């Protein structure tokens, strides 16, 4: 339990909820009138309380004259429960929706592969050629719109991250220590000096563009590349990074329209 400017915070995270509720009850019995009249915000961490447990919590608190005002957490389900119980909800930490959370898990999986392959000294992932379809042509119809583009007009400082299902456009610099992760393409209208991961769910055709491509590290799908410090920097200026033959190559913008680097997928 902790005092806050606007009342009481009750932390019930990180252990058995039943135990925590018992302890809370014991503590409130100890100091019955200290908190009388205040309101409380309950924090459950990753656990989702049952309606029974919420009822008990209310009871324990009201026994000490404390009203339950809100839940606090970053969990969508908890938020839903709060609404059902007619309580406020305070969001903490990165408010990851379920889909974003699964995205993070996917990135971890992709990076797992990268680390494994690096250990084995491999750079490439064998592409699986699709079986030629022996079905008749599928009717053309409108497919769902492609994921949107996250458009960020500010410089990213070290330690800041943008994770997005779709493309990312940054108008500004991406400083060393900053991280961009996109399932689609990444475009930096400025200096890219941090880490950029395009095609983060496996799209090897994804690209990374920047006015000044000077990254700490580039990742496309499951490929990873860092500058070799022994080599001289390629000609400065706008460039794109793309995956080709199992490696990430940097192409100056002016050369991007050559037939072999046209929009067609790498062979």
């Amino acid at each position: 339990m902790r005092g806050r400017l606007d009342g009481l915070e009750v932390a019930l995270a990180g252990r058995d909820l039943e135990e925590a509720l018992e302890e809370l009850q014991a503590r409130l019995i100890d100091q019955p009138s200290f908190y009388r009249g205040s309101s409380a915000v309950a924090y459950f961490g990753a656990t989702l309380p049952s309606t029974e447990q919420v009822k008990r919590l209310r009871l324990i608190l009201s026994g000490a004259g404390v009203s339950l005002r809100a839940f606090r957490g970053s969990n969508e389900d908890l938020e839903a429960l709060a609404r059902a119980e007619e309580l406020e909800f305070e969001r903490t930490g990165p408010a990851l929706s379920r889909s974003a959370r699964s995205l993070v898990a996917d990135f971890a999986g992709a990076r797992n592969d990268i680390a494994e392959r690096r250990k084995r000294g491999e750079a490439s992932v064998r592409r699986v050629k699709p079986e030629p379809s022996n079905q008749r042509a599928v009717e053309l119809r409108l497919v769902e719109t492609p994921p949107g583009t996250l458009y960020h007009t500010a410089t990213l400082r070290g330690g800041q991250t943008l994770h997005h299902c779709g493309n990312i456009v940054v108008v500004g610099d991406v400083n060393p220590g900053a991280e961009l992760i996109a399932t689609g393409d990444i475009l930096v209208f400025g200096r890219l000096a941090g880490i950029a991961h395009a095609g983060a769910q496996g799209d090897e055709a994804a690209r990374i563009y920047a006015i000044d491509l000077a990254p700490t590290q580039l990742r496309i799908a499951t490929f990873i590349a860092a500058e070799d410090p022994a080599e001289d920097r390629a000609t400065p200026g706008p460039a794109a990074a793309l995956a080709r033959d199992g490696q990430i190559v940097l192409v100056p913008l002016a050369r991007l329209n050559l037939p072999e680097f046209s929009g067609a997928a790498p062979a």
Partner: protein
Amino acid sequence: MSGRKIVITSGKGGVGKTTTTANLGATLAKRGRRVILIDADIGLRNLDLVLGLEKRIVFDLVEVAEGRCQLRQALIKDKRFDSLAILPAAQTREKDAIAPEQFAAIVASAAEQADYVLVDSPAGIETGFRNAVAGAAEAIVVTTPEVSAIRDADRVVGKIASEGKPIRLIVNRLRPEMVRSGDMLSVEDVCDVLSVELLGVVPDDEEVIDTTNRGEPIVLDESNRLRAIYDKIARRLEGELVPFTSFDQPTFLGRLIGALKVG
């Protein structure tokens, strides 16, 4: 046989913890020991920079703690040495992303694969420092011979000593000419205040900044005197009795001024 788990800390920032960790680790690796360096400064990671390994980071300390990867996947082998690897900190997280027990478990796991695990502690005495110390069985406190640094080191020594862990001292960035002119405390003064076993004295060297900027630990430079000094520190750490040599500093005019303890 599990390796030694040593935290390198200071209280005051900027006295050379990270540089010391990198150079001491490199020196031990050169002597044939298996060394793992762990950067505990989540959010302000620098150990990778100082060793020039920042571009090879795929996983970090927090991801190991969260079980999203194995320790061995996160370790980055420094190719310049046979047996030196680092576990980088996370840059985009905060110090409370990891609990002391989790950190201690990772250090213990590293100690099973190494002779030495050196933990680079963040500055201060808050959560980051507490996590860093939690994993260690011994401590090296780094200080410069300045009043503020010594006062902070004293606070840190007090905190660690209360846990019963052995502590040794490195006095860093000594400027003999300033000690001579009475403008800087001497090593004896520092030891008097802190009452901690002296492990080494490292003189100030203007090359160090450039080498940390370039990611090349200074002990790789055979012509730099710090290389021999770190070697002595490593030997003392391994239990050898290496005397502190006097360091005669002739002036530009060639006069011999009195001897000062350095080394």
